[in-house]
């Protein structure tokens, strides 16, 4: 596979995930009409994409047990009760503070000055999203 074929193949894969410009689409079409190898590759990728779609449809038909909401809320209420008197209470912010944050144009619900004390110490940093810490 030469570099041109690889670039077109990348573009073709991109076209499955996002909307490409007319120019790029024409480039792909032109290449397919001229390169038999790439045409075969594209067909294989399309087969794979349709299988992934089929798998997705299968998973989207599965739902969690109805009791899951109750289980989640019970664990959350337990957690809240455990921390009511200390860390979680500290992280609650007043309306005034919220207004001040908005006025300052800060997008964060929590004022930066509170970041250290509001994070409950028992949270494992590895389970928080990358943007949190």
């Amino acid at each position, binding site marked *: 596979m030469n570099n041109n074929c690889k670039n077109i*193949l*990348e573009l073709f*894969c*991109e076209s*499955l*995930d*996002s909307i490409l410009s007319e120019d790029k689409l024409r480039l792909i079409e032109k290449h397919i009409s001229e390169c038999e190898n790439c045409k075969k*590759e594209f*067909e*294989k*990728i399309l*087969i*794979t*994409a349709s*299988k*992934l779609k*089929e*798998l*997705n449809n*299968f*998973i*989207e038909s*599965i*739902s*969690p*047990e109805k009791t*899951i*909401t109750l*289980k*989640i*809320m019970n*664990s*959350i*209420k337990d*957690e*809240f009760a455990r921390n009511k008197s200390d860390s979680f209470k500290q*992280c*609650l*912010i007043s*309306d005034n503070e*919220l207004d001040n944050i908005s006025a300052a144009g800060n*997008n*964060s*619900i*929590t004022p930066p000055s*509170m*970041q250290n004390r*509001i*994070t*409950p110490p*028992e*949270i494992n940093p*590895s*389970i*928080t*999203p*990358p*943007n*949190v810490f």
Partner: protein
Amino acid sequence: MKTEINSDNIKEDIEIIEEVLKGDVEKFETLVLKYQTMIFRFVLKHIYDIDAAEELTQEVFLASFKCLNAYKKNSKFSSWLFGISVNIIRNYINRDLKKKRKCVSIDSLVKSPYAENKILENIADKYECKKCIKAIKNLPEDLREVCVLVALEEKSYIETGEILKLPVGTIKSRMFRARQKLKDTLS
């Protein structure tokens, strides 16, 4: 059906989060009801075990509650939940791998038929679906995460980048590599 996210939805979520942060814990249930199925299915697309997916879904919501104050209003709450889910899934897979390596007990050798029925590879009707599950499970972690978000969850490269904290170029190239690997196995 996937939960449609629009600006009204985001505003609604932020209002609920503010209420929860003021101490109204019951309000959190609205968010749980709205996103639990979405997160459960997202987890399932990584681990293909219904029981474990339910447990991890609970972990995701508990972790999100614990650090709710760190949620930034400028991102979608659903994306934030996806970010937490990715970390919890990584921990689970690493834990599971370690367990498999270290402990081969009699219990693990005698497989419960109930547990077997909760593994997607066993209940998927079609052979092709089973093959697809196996192929995704065999992808390296970095490619699998991108593949599930882009090809299954149909997230844009930009949103996937936000969730995984990676540049769009990295997402694009990982997705290309994932498609190449899957193509070799599935076509």
